[in-house]
């Protein structure tokens, strides 16, 4: 048992832990930055103060999430060197420039305009402030572009050659490296996932406040906006996810075998295993509930199409089937529930009951974390499904790690776990405290002002001050 926890396994657990925690924050900020841009744009266009109130309500949450994303992201940018030095050395000439482009074109853009977005409304005026919001939103998008290009290259490497030091280098043009075969699908799938994550968080907060006061116009506004996203984007995501799956089947068929639980080949039509317990020792799925030939229909669009199983692959190249099988099913189940909530809300909207139908609000409340869980489940599916490789088919995870002593990695892993749970646990608590407050008219600016005794600087005074210096029209 103990030899399982060698330095390599500890390094993998540490990377999985730190990247999973980190991924939650950008999954929120990508969607939330765009949502804030939409709110500010609508406020500028219509002059309706409820949009600005929602903007100020959500920007406080955005600031918290963004801060946690920054500090957990710095850890990621150094972890390649600390724990995966051989991978860094060999893959650095390819992935290094792509990540450097992410820093140059995305991180600076986000961080450079965030200060103005948070604290600058009264100093720069409406137009420039909106520009700052747009730049932050653009930054989150560009960041996703580059980092997913890196990840996709590790899944479906293209456009590379090897040099004398056994490093991966560009064979010629950089375009086939950046736009490698799985990149467009992964980018679309992940961005939609981020938008859905935000939509379901916003929807749950709106639902919570509707359950307490269904007349609050700002709770109505955010709930309605979120449910439009669920209605439109959740079905789009199912289509994009299907295309991404077909792309995976073409380029990483072993991952799909693990997702489907196909240990055996099926020469005349493979069944869809809905549930079961993958048993890798016996190379079969125990207690399988399956629908004959449906997997072939989904993957090949033909009931009788043959599908290879893991029996065609040497066992040293098998990913851990149980993890991939289950994380994939969790993602799919949540995706279907999301589309279901979208359809129900459309039904309620058409009937004029969107703000009255309490079971819908309770359902939306329960679905609040669904996007976050689905994002993690999808990420685990694609990353664990790539194992035992860091670069699919070219470089094994076992040959990627730094030559570190197990106690060093164990100590740092314990430190990361303790610090992340304590610090980010507190952060989640603060976010939930902010979400528990109803969105009020004339939300104050997110100035870093200590909570003071009532009467010194009431929120309304700050609001008026902003209006006087060009903050907008008051209803």
């Amino acid at each position, binding site marked *: 048992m103990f030899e399982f926890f060698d330095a390599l396994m500890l390094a993998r657990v540490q990377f999985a832990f730190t990247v999973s925690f980190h991924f939650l924050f950008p999954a929120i900020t990508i969607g939330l930055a765009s949502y804030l841009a939409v709110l500010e744009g609508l406020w500028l266009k219509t002059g309706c103060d409820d949009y600005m109130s929602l903007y100020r309500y959500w920007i406080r949450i955005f600031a918290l999430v*963004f*801060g946690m994303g*920054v*500090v957990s*992201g*710095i*850890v990621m*940018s*150094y972890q*390649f*060197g*600390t*724990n*995966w*030095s051989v991978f*860094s*050395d060999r893959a*650095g*000439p*390819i992935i*290094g*420039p792509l990540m*450097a482009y*992410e*820093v*140059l*074109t995305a991180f*600076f*853009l986000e*961080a*450079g*305009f*965030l*200060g*103005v977005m948070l*604290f*600058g409304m*009264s*100093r*720069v005026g409406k137009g420039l402030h909106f520009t700052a919001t747009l730049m932050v939103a653009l930054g989150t998008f560009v960041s996703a572009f580059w980092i997913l290009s890196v990840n996709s290259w590790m899944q479906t490497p293209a456009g590379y050659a090897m040099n004398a*030091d056994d*490093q991966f*280098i*560009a064979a010629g043009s950089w375009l086939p490296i950046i736009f490698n075969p799985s990149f467009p699908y992964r980018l679309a799938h992940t961005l939609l996932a981020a938008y859905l994550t935000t939509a379901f968080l916003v929807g749950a907060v709106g639902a919570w406040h509707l359950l307490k006061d269904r007349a609050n116009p700002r709770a109505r506004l955010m709930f309605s906006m979120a449910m439009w996203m669920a209605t439109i984007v959740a079905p789009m995501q199912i289509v994009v996810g299907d295309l991404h799956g077909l792309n995976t089947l073409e380029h990483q068929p072993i991952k799909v075998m693990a997702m489907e639980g196909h240990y055996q080949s099926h020469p005349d039509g493979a069944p869809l295993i809905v549930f079961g317990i993958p048993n890798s020792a016996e190379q079969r799925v125990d207690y399988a509930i399956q629908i004959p030939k449906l997997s072939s229909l989904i993957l090949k669009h033909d009931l009788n199409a043959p599908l290879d199983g893991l029996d065609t692959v040497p066992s040293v190249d098998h990913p851990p089937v149980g993890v991939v099988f289950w994380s994939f099913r969790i993602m799919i189940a949540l995706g279907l529930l999301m589309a279901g909530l979208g359809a129900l809300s459309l039904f309620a909207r058409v009937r004029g009951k969107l703000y009255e139908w309490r079971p819908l609000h309770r359902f939306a409340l329960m679905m609040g974390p669904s996007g976050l869980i689905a994002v993690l489940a999808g990420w685990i599916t694609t990353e664990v499904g790539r194992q035992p490789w860091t670069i699919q088919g070219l470089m094994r995870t076992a040959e990627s790690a*730094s*030559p*570190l002593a197990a106690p060093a990695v164990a100590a*740092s892993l314990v*430190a*990361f776990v303790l*610090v992340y749970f304590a*610090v980010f646990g*507190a*952060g989640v608590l*603060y976010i939930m405290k902010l979400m528990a407050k109803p969105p009020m008219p004339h939300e104050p600016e997110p*100035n*870093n*002002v*200590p909570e003071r005794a009532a009467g010194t*600087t009431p929120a309304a005074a700050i609001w008026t001050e902003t209006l006087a210096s060009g903050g907008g029209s008051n209803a």
Partner: protein
Amino acid sequence: MNTDLTMIWAFIIFLAVFIYVVLDGFDLGIGILFHRFKVGHDRDTAMNSVAPVWDGNETWLVLGGGGLLAAFPLAYGLIFSALYAPLIAMLLALVFRGVAFEFRWRDSGHRRFWDLSFSGGSLLAAVSQGVMLGALLQGIAISDRAYAGGWWDWLTPFSIITGVSVAIAYALLGATWLVLKTEGALQKQARNMAWWLGCATLVAIGVVSVGTLFLSEAYFAKWLAWPRVLWVAPVPLLVALSSLAFARSLRSGHELAPFLLTLSVFLLCFVGLGISVFPDVIPGAVTLWAAATDHSSQVFMLWGTAIVLPMILAYTGWSYWVFRGKVDAHGYHS
């Protein structure tokens, strides 16, 4: 051609690390001094003076790390696996420091804890960075493109001295920043601190410089071999001149000059480090050219850097311009 690009990339990384040290240096310095300020107005003001810019400042650290991976991947892997413990300590310290900017305003019941998280995180991050500098200067054991030492090799009396020295120098930078950005009693306190920290920094520079000379014969020769000594002597001389000017400006009530003169001392120290380490990236073990990435990667990144870096400097400058002037406990006001 390859040679030239490697030099250009060494300069870009050098520049990124320098900008990081200067910008996050005053943020971290304010954190290190934080507990010396009175609870309430003074602490709120000190924190607010960097709140709008701190994460832009920290992005230069990401560029330093990411740039090293991109331009010198071998050095990136070797240095950070060798400096494992202090690097992890720095990352965790930056977590505590970074979240405190938001958390202390959200939870008045635990503000004392988050203030401690801010100052303790800043101090540990600064000391860790200094320890890493010392550990790098004293050399890293390498065999066959891999780190060959133990996980406590970084810890020596010299690396502890550099750790403390960097923390002192950051504190000086933070104090002079507050002289520039604040007024009244807090400014007076910062000015007083800057005087003592200036003296301490000068001592620290002296101790680290002399210590470096005796780390290896190579360092000794790079500074004291004839006639090379004539070329490098202006660096310590300019440090002495800047220090004198610093003392005068602080005494005569200038607000901007002490900060700028501290920056010039930082720049001179960086030039000094460059003289000690060049043409290696890992002193005595790996040259810049041995660690450099592929030519095609250098060209590809240089295009992006040439176009984007001036834009970054422009909008970062704009952001500082927006938040110019004095700050108080309520943040920046027009």
